[in-house]
């Protein structure tokens, strides 16, 4: 998708995009570090070491301040990137359209094209304003926590790492299942709407020839059928919709059980484990933001595909050194032509039409 994004926005947007991504990563890493610092503070408190707690609290305070600054910085970067790429996208879009052949602009294309140009551009650019930050943060933050955990208690770190594949698989499966279902349901709805529209446009015939009863029944049947298809499909994927959130909670619960087991075995200090347990939660919880970012991503992907298609459409080649015609005569020389998607070709022989003559054709 990144490749597609760059194709659409243009290579000169790579720099701002990269700056933004780096700023977000720094923010997320700082956030992860702040989370990790809760362990020494809590540990100290549980051990009744108030001085130690205050010291570590000082460090936490400093890191938190840095995190807030980093947040502000990445937000500003995001805004700058959004502005820069919105302008670039509009301009590239305009240039692209200007290069396409006139025949490409059919009646059917105009509506969706206009929507893409107005709403679509805005949607693509909310990516930078809203989606990128939660997306990167929900991955980098927990990873930072995991790395810190390695130094604090490798067993918990291992357990945390073990949940990652589960989360990943669940995420991919549930988003794919939901997307497929949404497609099917959207199609069913589109069909139902088309039927109604046909019904409306055929009213003069329906009423004039007494077909009201028959057409009403037929329409109702069609609508009910589409409704059943949609409903059955949605029922099948009810589980998929909430699956990711549940899986996150499942991993937290499992990790807590594991920690409990370690604590009861008595091999490690309870206070330490409790502090680590709290950190565990900080590991899993940001991941939930991933599913929201995923939704926004899906919408953007659709628009991106539409834009990409336009940018990939071959344009009329233009000469670098254009010449002016000598007179107004037209000459077709060995012309072969085919409408897109049509099987046959029209062929004409050499057919010069001299200047100032009139030729009709049938």
């Amino acid at each position: 998708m990144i490749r597609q994004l760059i194709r659409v926005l243009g290579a000169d947007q790579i720099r701002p995009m990269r700056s933004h991504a780096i700023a977000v990563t720094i923010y997320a890493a700082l956030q992860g570090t702040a989370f990790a610092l809760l362990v020494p503070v809590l540990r100290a408190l549980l051990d009744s070491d108030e001085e130690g707690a205050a010291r570590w609290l000082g460090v936490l305070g400093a890191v938190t301040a840095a995190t807030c600054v980093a947040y502000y910085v990445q937000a500003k970067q995001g805004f700058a990137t959004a502005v820069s790429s919105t302008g670039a996208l509009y301009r590239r879009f305009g240039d692209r359209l200007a290069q396409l052949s006139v025949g490409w602009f059919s009646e059917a294309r105009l509506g969706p094209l206009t929507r893409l140009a107005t709403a679509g551009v805005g949607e693509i650019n909310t990516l930078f304003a809203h989606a990128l930050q939660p997306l990167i943060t929900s991955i980098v933050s927990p990873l930072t926590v995991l790395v810190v955990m390695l130094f604090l208690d490798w067993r918990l770190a291992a357990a945390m790492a073990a949940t990652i594949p589960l989360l990943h698989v669940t995420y991919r499966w549930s988003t794919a299942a939901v997307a497929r279902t949404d497609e099917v349901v959207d199609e069913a709805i589109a069909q139902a709407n088309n039927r109604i529209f046909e019904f409306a446009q055929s009213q003069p015939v329906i009423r004039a020839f007494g077909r009201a009863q028959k057409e009403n029944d037929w329409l109702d049947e069609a609508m009910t059928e589409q409704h059943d298809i949609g409903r059955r499909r949605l029922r099948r994927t009810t589980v998929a919709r909430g699956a990711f959130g549940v899986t996150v909670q499942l991993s937290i619960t499992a990790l807590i059980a594991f920690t409990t087991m370690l604590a009861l075995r008595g091999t490690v200090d309870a206070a330490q484990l409790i502090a680590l347990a709290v950190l565990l939660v900080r590991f899993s919880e940001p991941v939930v933001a991933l599913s929201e970012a995923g939704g926004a991503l899906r919408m953007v992907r659709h628009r991106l595909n539409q834009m990409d298609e336009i940018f990939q459409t071959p344009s009329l080649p233009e000469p670098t050194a254009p010449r002016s015609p000598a007179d107004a005569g037209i000459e077709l020389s060995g012309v072969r032509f085919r409408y897109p998607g049509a099987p046959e070709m029209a062929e004409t022989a050499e057919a010069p039409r001299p200047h100032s003559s009139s030729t009709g054709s049938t």
Partner: protein
Amino acid sequence: MSVNRREEGAALRALLRPVRGRITAGVALQALAGIASLGSFVAIYPLAVALLADEPDGSTVWWIVASAALALVVRFVAQSLSYLLMHDADMEFQLRLRRRIADRLSRVPLGWYSSRNSATVKKALADDVDSMHYLVAHALPDLTMALVTPVAALVYLFALDWRLALVTLVTTPVFGVLFRMTGKRGGRQHERLAGAIVGINTAVIEFVQGISVIKAFGQRDKASERFNKAVDDYMTTFTAVKGPLMSLSSLAYASVSPAAMLAASLGGGTLFVAADWTRPVDILPFVLLGLAISAPLVVVTYAPQALGQARQAADRVAELLATPTLAEPERPLTPSGHVAEFHDVTFGYTAGSPVLRNIDLTLEPGTVTALVGPSGAGKSTLAALLPRFFDPDQGSVRVGGIDLRDMAAQELYSHVAFVFQDVRLLRATVADNIKMARPNATSAEVQAAARAARCHDRILELPRGYDSVVGEDAVLSGGESQRIAIARALLADTPIIVLDEATAFVDPEAEAGIYDALSALIAGRTVLFVAHRLHTIVDADQIVVLEHGRVAERGTHTELLDSAGVYRRLWEAYTESGAHAQGNRIDAPEAAL
């Protein structure tokens, strides 16, 4: 336009009423799931207390873990049930709504399907229903979870230790103030930004939709320049308005970011422990749940938009559903004979601007009446009143002495047939389309009608001849469809026919054939004919000249030429332009079935 708050949501509530139960249950279950999702966080506190005891009791500890697992199961079940209910409610709501719309459309006046209204129907069915669907299936569940979870967490924390809860929330007022400031400034700048958005959208639309003209006239570079400038202007305004707003709102969100909440809860906790107000282990819930409180603040800012859109969508749909329909008579009367009359008819598409005024017109049986006049005079509108495309605002249209409004639709259309420019063939076989008025017609009758309408040979050329299905294996040009519609009208064999000459212009190739077909159609019937080419109607029994919606003159061709009025002027202009040399005309009752 609804103004007060209560009215605002009224249309939406009314439309959702049938599925209200399921939505409420779904929301309640989602709330339950939200509370249950806190299970694992909440469990750590009692767990810690148990583990820190001198001799941790294994069974207590495992009971706590089991409770956390139970909370997980409750969440899963409640959430799944909730989605099930909400989706069912959503689908049923959509089906009901579509049914109502279809029902309405089957009863509005035939003339209501102008291009503007078709676009309204399209928008209602696709976009508006979709906005409401989004609210029910996505926004409501997400919002419920996003609100209930932090509220539940807050209640729990306040119940434990209200002082520490307050300290944990210490940065929230900062958020509140900054957010409000953003809102206020945004409000002031709103107009400026809205104007800029309209500007860029207009520039884009003009560019995209005009592109073929632009290229054809070699204006491409200039248009691109103009477009790029519009983009630059927009980006400048956008940056100037949104820039400062974004800075403010980022500060706001930074103040309640997870790290900040963590620092607040830990800092406050440490202070309380130092002051001996609480045990160390008692600050755990605050550290665990403090972050759950700030997360939804982001979601909540999106929610009003979804609700607002759904409300507006509901209003539009309600308006569509309230479109006035044609009144059906309680006790339908039967016409006697088939004289068609217009009595003092006045009609306008919109109230207050009549297109037809005080029209009095009688069509005697077996005669041909032609309507002529400059374009915009109301000819097509008047003709459309006879097959009841609209009801007149004043006066009455009668057939066989009975007002159309007192007649059943079936009755009316067994007396009046019409062939207008936008011919509609149903997705059925060609034979079925022709037989529409008389399903029991024999194929000999069908073919005879097709021959008279000059389309029999063309039909035989189709892949399955008369059994080809229109729209599938029968792809017909405009002129071919017209002739099939004429065959259909021929077979319907109604005493009165309303025609628009423009049907012939659809297809220059087929024009002669269409004129022949029309001649066959009018033989022996009462005809109301909207004429565009004057030479075709010189033999009409009655010519009615319309000007500015009124009858200016009436008479035969010769009478009108003699009276040297509007018709004479039109005729002279017409013959001068040489158009009459083309030769097609409708011949009077010579052609026969």
